[in-house]
């Protein structure tokens, strides 16, 4: 059986499974559509959160970025896991106690202001749509690779599938489907990593293999450092860029993790306040299984890639142009990999020297998909990775679209514009807003502002600067009032958005940027790291404005005191 048929079977079977589960658990009422009736066990909820969380950015993109970025890209690893500690201690239990359905609902009630609720909806939409752009990039890469079509063709096809899938189910359908998707994606990530780790180091656990000796006797990382430096690249394990930027980037990803609405709503669906704390722990367990493997996948993929180009060692003859393995030819067809024989010697040269380098384009997002082929693994492993990558992209895109649609239909339309809307029309509005977001994200995904994980990192910056500070101050301070929260959220969002647009183009339209991340506007601070600065602006502005204006009303102080204790949490309250 050829690879293409096998891919089709694996993808087909897993998709049939997800759609089957979604239909079986189809949402009946609005409450089920948003929050699954609060009947989900912490371990299952943890798995579903894991699937929700680990998107195309984690699955497809991150290891590739680590492979070529080395030590500095550890920011992704620490940032996207460390945020769960913040979530578990600073937000999740209190928001569960509060007992409503959406993040803007909490902000609107706590800051006793429809304006605050509207601003929260805007922040949520800006961050989530940016996030979906990153997902669409991943979906496009995965589909173009597996169907041998152009990137834009794969992108539109993927968008159609995401749309169909997200509109069909609500949260309940999504929760159980996401448990299935977690199982598929973690298997798909781990199995090739185990094979590759065994090949290179003889250690079946990739996370340990990373720090083991290769078959030649030297430690893997030492060997990798040697070859990348011989090719003229920077050392893999050494710090080379700005420490301050790495610090801010990590912080920004951590705060953003705790501020992303599609993750926070997960904790609304557990039965009890104490389950919200355990759920955060379980979610991180399932996430860590992938995140501990990812750095090994990255380092090993880089080494295997170099060995493919230089099968006889760096001094020996390099790969002939017309002897390229099938995976290279396949990815060249998608336009995501490009080889050009500049010196016409019939061999490929790979080097840090731009003029000599003949691997003229290498999209980092293809590395995880190409990895099993680079290592010559059996074809069913390759098919499994394709299915896993799509599971990751699909599950997160669906969760984000849920968050966007509930913000629009529940908070904006039902909560503010037309409280008398019927349940049927509310669901209709939810589905229309999903479709509109998919269209916008796909169109912007044709020219994404970065690799999938970098685009997603921008979304984290936006969430960090706008939503997280408002939620945290809403719980930990009784003094922050409506004016302070609104001013804080708006200033955090706006400074971050402007900083990002200045570097990535206005509204992400390519070519409209005045600066770029190689030489950022403010010293070493790249646009992906600016979220931490935006969060600081948010905190300071909210504090200053609140203290300059009137105190919060007594009933709001009582509300804050009530969310701080678990007693009397009870079920969800709809209004």
């Amino acid at each position: 059986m050829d690879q293409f048929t096998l891919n089709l079977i694996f993808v087909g079977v897993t998709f049939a499974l997800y759609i089957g589960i979604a239909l079986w658990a189809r949402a009946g009422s609005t409450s089920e559509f948003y929050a699954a009736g609060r009947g989900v066990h912490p371990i299952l909820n943890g798995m579903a959160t894991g699937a929700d969380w680990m998107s195309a950015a984690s699955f497809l993109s991150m290891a590739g970025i680590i492979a070529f970025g080395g030590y500095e890209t550890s920011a992704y690893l620490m940032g996207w896991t460390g945020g769960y500690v913040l979530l578990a201690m600073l937000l999740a239990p209190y928001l569960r106690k509060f007992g409503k359905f959406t993040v803007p609902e909490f902000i609107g009630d706590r800051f006793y202001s429809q304006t605050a609720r509207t601003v929260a909806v805007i922040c949520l939409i800006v961050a989530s749509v940016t996030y979906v752009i990153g997902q669409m990039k991943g979906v496009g890469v995965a589909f173009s690779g597996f169907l041998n079509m152009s990137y834009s063709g794969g992108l539109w096809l993927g968008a159609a599938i995401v749309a169909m899938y997200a509109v069909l189910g609500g949260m309940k359908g999504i929760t159980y489907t996401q448990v299935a998707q977690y199982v598929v994606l973690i298997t798909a990530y781990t199995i090739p990593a185990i094979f590759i780790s065994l090949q290179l180091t003889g250690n079946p656990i990739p996370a340990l293999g990373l720090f083991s000796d290769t078959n030649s006797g030297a430690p893997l990382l030492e060997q990798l450092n040697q070859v990348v430096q011989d090719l003229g690249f920077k050392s893999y394990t050494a710090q080379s860029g700005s420490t301050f930027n790495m610090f801010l980037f990590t912080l920004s990803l951590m705060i953003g993790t705790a501020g992303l609405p599609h993750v926070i709503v997960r904790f609304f669906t557990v039965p009890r306040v104490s389950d919200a704390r355990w759920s955060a722990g379980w979610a991180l367990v399932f996430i860590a299984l992938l995140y501990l493997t990812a750095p090994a996948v990255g380092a090993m993929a880089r080494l295997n890639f170099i060995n493919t180009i230089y099968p006889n060692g760096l001094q020996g003859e390099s790969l002939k142009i017309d002897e390229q393995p099938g995976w290279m030819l396949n990815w060249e067809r998608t336009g995501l990999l490009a080889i050009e024989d500049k010196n016409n010697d019939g061999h490929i040269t790979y080097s840090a020297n731009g003029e000599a380098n003949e691997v003229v384009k290498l999209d980092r997002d293809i590395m995880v998909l190409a990895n099993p082929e680079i290592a010559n693994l059996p074809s069913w492993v390759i098919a499994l990775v394709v299915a896993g990558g799509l599971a990751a992209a699909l599950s997160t895109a669906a969760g984000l679209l849920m968050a966007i649609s509930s913000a629009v239909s529940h908070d904006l339309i039902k909560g503010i514009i037309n409280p008398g809307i019927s349940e049927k029309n509310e669901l209709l509005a939810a589905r229309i807003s999903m479709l509109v977001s998919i269209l916008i994200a796909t169109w912007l995904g044709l020219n994404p502002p970065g690799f999938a994980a970098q685009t997603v990192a921008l979304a984290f910056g936006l969430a960090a600067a706008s939503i997280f500070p408002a939620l945290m101050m809403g719980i930990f301070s009784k003094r922050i009032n409506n004016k302070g929260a609104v001013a804080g959220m708006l200033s955090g969002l706006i400074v971050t958005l402007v900083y990002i647009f200045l570097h990535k183009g206005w509204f992400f339209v390519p070519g409209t940027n005045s600066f770029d991340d190689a030489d950022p506007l403010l010293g070493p601070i790249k646009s992906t790291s600016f979220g931490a600065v935006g969060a600081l602006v948010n905190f300071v502005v909210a504090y200053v404005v609140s203290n300059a204006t009137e105190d919060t009303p007594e009933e709001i102080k009582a509300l804050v005191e009530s969310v701080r204790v678990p007693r009397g949490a009870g079920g969800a309250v709809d209004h």
Partner: protein
Amino acid sequence: MADQNTTSESDKAYWAANVRTIAVILVIWAVCSFGFGILLRPMLEGIKIGGTDLGFWFAQQGSIITFLILIFVYAWRMNNLDRQYGVEEE
């Protein structure tokens, strides 16, 4: 919110204990990630592990393992505090 006007001294003490717990955990959280993984890495350079140094390990794996432990410690400790202050759910 049935009980929003019943905040007692004991609830205040519960909250203070929670905030103290959070503060301690956040210090460990920051030291293991921002500290050992980034800012203090030069100080750990002498400790070699698998072809690189301990700071690299903390940045890529050690911090994640620490985060896991911290969340479970927090959840366990808060369950105890919930019972001790009588604020647990029915």
